[in-house]
């Protein structure tokens, strides 16, 4: 499970102006809650993705603060109202300080 988290994002490549599109994201991550104990009875330290940020052309669209109660391989879906063509930047922030980033283009016509 200690592989690098791989983000997966699904959204339509094209949209009409004014359309509200759904964006579905998934990232592989064990989301260790900090509540579990290992075989020796020691608490396994918490290591989760604590923040998910979606921006379009550099402007914030949606943000989610995740707590340890979020399931492993966290899924997040939300909506975006298409206005202009551009690029989404999705960022997942890990407890250990690393960022996982995915970029997706959207054509509005």
């Amino acid at each position: 499970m200690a592989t690098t988290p791989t983000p997966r994002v699904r959204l339509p490549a094209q949209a009409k102006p004014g359309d509200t599109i759904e964006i579905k994201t998934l990232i592989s991550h064990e989301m260790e809650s900090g509540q579990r104990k290992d075989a020796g009875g020691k608490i396994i330290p918490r290591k989760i993705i604590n923040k998910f940020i979606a921006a379009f052309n550099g402007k914030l669209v949606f943000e989610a603060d995740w707590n340890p109660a979020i399931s492993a391989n966290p899924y997040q879906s939300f909506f975006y109202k298409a206005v202009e063509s551009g690029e989404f930047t999705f960022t997942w922030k890990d407890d250990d300080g690393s960022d996982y980033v995915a970029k997706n283009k959207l054509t509005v016509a």
Partner: protein
Amino acid sequence: MLNAKTSRATIGKGMQRNPAGGDRMILKSVEKTRRETLAYAAIAGLAALLAPRMSMADESAVAAEINKLYGDKKFESGKIKLDVPEIAENGLVVPVTVDVESPMTESDYVKSVHVFADGNPLPGIVSYKFTPACGKASASTRMRLAQTQNIVCIAEMSNGKLHMAKAGVKVTIGGCGG
């Protein structure tokens, strides 16, 4: 992911096993087996009730969290559609969808949404920040629930109004400790 699979497998095995158990049971009448099965079930239920629990948050913890965010402001009902399953078979992965009614314009939109649970080790589940660019104040994720409990959802509108919704989820297998 791995945890979910293991716990599923365990349930499967448990169900196949004759709850009245033991080889000696084969000789006894069906009636007797059924009666004993019921007795076993009752004992199991009692044991589950009496079993020591992990320290869990409760309603007061959720109230404290809400108080931290909004003080003792008033909450209105309505506007929020909190979509959770009535019965969650696997507490490790419980889908939760929040949908707040709002035009989502620059002058009138949903600022933030907080989701809490009153029976988990920690009350917080997720906090969302919406912007008018979302077009729709709706988001879905998947959460862990340690036991049967209530989900509380709070939405803060751009005009400062607060809304609250509650929903109960019955959890068959708790998603805690794996």
